[in-house]
């Protein structure tokens, strides 16, 4: 389905702010799978998702989708097959436009946008029906600007919008990180429901080990722009939150040793 072949990405190259975000990531995502990506801060999880979505072009390596090389395909063209929900609830919706208009924008994802009316009565009825499934009362507020909604409502709506036209790949970028715990649980439930119902191939980045353990059928752990662990469905079944945390500790400890060794060498030989 999606094949990532040894991709590299460095931001702010040759400046003091240089970040080597991806350093040779290779990954194969099977159709219908639900992969959870965890990792330390700055490990390149979000960068990986954005590289797949096409927010920027990678420095080297290749990305294939259904056997087609999409490495050089611009973001808006990949959007035809890829749905994405961002961490920031403000990113996924247009605040000054109404709920109905936002949905109508989403319902045309990857399709031709011409001179037809964005809001037709027939569509509005469909919008209302689907909004009812969120149980947030949004179906009564179709003409309200999105900016008036809470973060949780906006994120639920973004989720609904990004899957309105069924995407071949759904990318979730820490989409509950900016929400309060209660709302986060609601959004997670909704996420699972939508993924199950539409049988969506999903790649989800999360900082919550609980989510990582509970959701999906594969866990990938990233560190310093590389994939350091990859647990398949069977391995994942036996994985507990504590296991993941100890893996993180291990990574950190290794790093500390590396640093202290470096310091020691410096002290002795420089």
């Amino acid at each position, binding site marked *: 389905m999606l094949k990532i072949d040894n991709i590299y990405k460095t931001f702010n190259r040759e400046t003091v702010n240089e970040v080597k975000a991806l350093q040779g990531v290779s990954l194969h995502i099977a159709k219908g799978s639900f992969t959870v990506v965890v990792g330390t801060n700055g490990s390149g999880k979000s960068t990986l998702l954005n590289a797949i*979505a096409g927010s920027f072009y990678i420095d080297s390596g290749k990305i294939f989708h259904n056997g087609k090389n999409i490495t050089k395909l*611009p973001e*808006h063209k990949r959007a035809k097959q890829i749905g994405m929900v961002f961490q920031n609830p403000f990113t996924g*919706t247009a*605040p000054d436009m109404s709920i109905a208009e*936002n949905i109508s*924008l989403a319902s*045309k994802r990857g399709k031709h946008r011409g001179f*037809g009316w964005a809001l037709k009565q027939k569509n509005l009825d469909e919008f209302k029906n689907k909004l009812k499934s969120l149980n947030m009362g949004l179906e009564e507020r179709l003409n309200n600007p999105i900016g008036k909604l809470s973060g949780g409502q906006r994120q639920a709506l973004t989720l609904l919008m*990004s899957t309105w036209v069924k995407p071949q790949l759904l990318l979730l970028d820490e989409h509950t990180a900016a929400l309060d715990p209660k709302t986060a649980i609601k959004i997670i439930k909704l996420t699972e429901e939508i993924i199950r119902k539409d049988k969506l191939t999903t790649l989800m980045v999360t900082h919550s080990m609980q989510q990582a353990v509970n959701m999906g059928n594969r866990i990938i752990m990233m560190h310093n722009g590389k994939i350091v662990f990859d647990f398949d469905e069977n391995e994942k079944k036996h994985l507990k939150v504590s296991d993941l945390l100890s893996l993180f500790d291990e990574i950190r400890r290794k790093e500390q040793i590396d640093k202290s060794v470096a310091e020691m060498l410096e002290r002795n030989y420089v």
Partner: protein
Amino acid sequence: MTLLIGSLTIGLILSLLALGVFISFRIFNFPDITADGSITLGAAVAASMIVAGFGPLLATVCSFIAGFIAGAVTGILHTKFKINSLLSGILVMTALYSVNLRVMGKSNIPLLSQKTVITSFESFSQYIFSSTDIINIAGWSVPAKDLSVLILTAIIIIIFAIILYLFLKTNLGTAMRATGNNAQMIRALGVNTQTMIILGLALSNGLIGLSGALFAQYQGFADVQMGIGMIVLGLASVIIGEALINEKTLGLLITGAIMGAVLFRLLVAIALRWGMNPNDLKLITAGFVFIALMLPMALKRFKRN
């Protein structure tokens, strides 16, 4: 009274400029200075074509197309060549100064004895007011011709406003509005935001070119200097319009921009009548826009203390 009708007509003509500025500044959040050049371009194209013997209607349509192209160039500079938005506008505006001189062949083209869109409006008065030359409105005598021009201009502006409103409600139009509102989101929904910006600026400057064409025909000449400061005037109209409406829905914002342009023109006429030096007009307009932009922030700070 003639003064009032004159200012209303000019205000309406310049409301096309206000609509153009509304598209670039408010919908796309793009400070597009091309306006100063494209309004003159519209005037230059219309005037030279009329003098060359083309029909005034065709000349006016061509001025829209000319403005459209100018706006598209600004959009291309910004999106394809990654030039800062302000600078793209400045580059095109500066280049247009030479283009306008080329189009006109000299710095001023008089249209006084020519048949223009406005003179056809004037002659239309015989259908509206039969053969009366002077109309009496609440004790004021008004030349029927002037009134006829005002009415027809108003009708045309209303038609344009409705077309613009309806366009912004189409799938393409909503995608354009979303581009200005949240570009990242609409890219993720499969819209090429670069194309939207190019198209939006083209549309904006097309309207501004049209405004210039009508303005030149109304005042009876096109001048290469006439565009100076027009962007600020358009912005002032949009800001006044936003102050006039209480709810920021699309329809009201468009109506507001038109009302703002007319009101601004009336205020200018009154100020000139009171003896304001016309040379100070642009200084005062700029000062007004400054205050309007600064006021919300100052009020907030004032409330906090």
